[in-house]
């Protein structure tokens, strides 16, 4: 096996940002991403997923460490101030590391 350690970055944010963020992730070097619908609560209040303005998405990106840092910094400078968003990351072991 060609197992290797990569970084998994997770962004939880407003659903209306989904397509914009996905384009930006690719520009920052992500080779892929996985998205699930979510709801939640945070500093911007309750976002309970009932209708468009209240939906969250949970975007996961497996990538190299440098890309992970770029994504986190980008999210921070672009979105943290005005948007409901949480970003966190941790190392994961992947097969076929060349993919990411």
């Amino acid at each position, binding site marked *: 096996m060609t197992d290797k350690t990569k970084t998994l970055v997770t962004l939880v944010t407003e659903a*209306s940002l989904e397509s914009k963020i996905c384009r930006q992730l690719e520009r920052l070097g992500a080779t892929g991403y996985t998205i699930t619908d979510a709801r939640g609560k945070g500093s911007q209040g309750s976002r309970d997923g009932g209708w*468009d303005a209240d939906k969250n998405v949970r975007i996961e990106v497996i990538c190299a460490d440098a890309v992970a840092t770029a994504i986190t910094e980008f999210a921070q400078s672009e979105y943290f101030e005005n948007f409901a968003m949480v970003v966190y990351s941790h190392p994961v072991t992947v097969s076929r590391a060349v993919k990411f």
Partner: protein
Amino acid sequence: MSDPIILFFIFGIVAGLLRSELRLPSAIYDFLSMTLLLAIGLKGGIELAKQPFLSLAPQIGAVFLMGLLLPLVAFPLLRLAGGFGRADAASIAAHYGSVSVGTFAVGIAYMHSRAVFYEEHMSLLLVVLEIPAILVGILLARGLSKQTQWGSVAHEIFAGKGVILLLGGLGIGWVAGPAGVESIAPFFFDLFKGVLALFLLEMGIITASKLGSLRRYGLFIIGFGIAMPLFSALVGGLLATALGLSVGGVAMLATLAASASYIAVPAAMRISVPEANPALSLAASLGVTFPFNVLVGIPLYYQLASWLTATVGV
């Protein structure tokens, strides 16, 4: 008041206030609102098929101007009397200059249940009114800054779910005409009020959830959320009377003017004026103005329309 769709709305508010677990699944809410938007568009399109488009140009122009004007009235009020920051004032002003399809649908149902005639091309005016307030709102927040990406603003407006469904419905109704649309009438027209009833049930639940945040934003927002639609309804009613619309048409344009957006404008503002607090404008438009219009406003605007056409009208 005993129209069942209004009762569904009240039921939703009660269920929400009781902290019941009752919610429409979000996929169903989307389905219902898509059906309503298409149905409203189709109704308008069928009407367009019956008359030369050009004859509507004056109405379209006048209504577009009204959409530019209303946020310009709301903005200084929000800045000075309300003490809101520039971005928030501009965003709220845009919400109130634009329109709410849900309120419009309740207006339609009101006219139908009283068998009041209204000009069905009102759906077209609904689409027209979605747009100018967004542009004014962005300009109020940003000035003529070069930073504003007008291309993506335009995309956000026209490719946004609400407007594109209305435009699609209008286009389909227009091309297919009254006879063509008959085959899909059982779905889009016969079920209209039932679909609207379920939609209003969920809107009631959402409204109840916004009531809590009202406390945070204080009395001014409640006052504004009632006074502004009253003023706008008067402007809309006068304009409609001047345009020579029927009583029903005057009432519907007053309703449109009085309604405050909670779909298209929030989405556009989120992209273009992200520093504006969306919870604030939604608390006003969903927590105050939507229930006010649905429960009190529409019957009032209908009376206003009767009075206007009787005294001012030709």
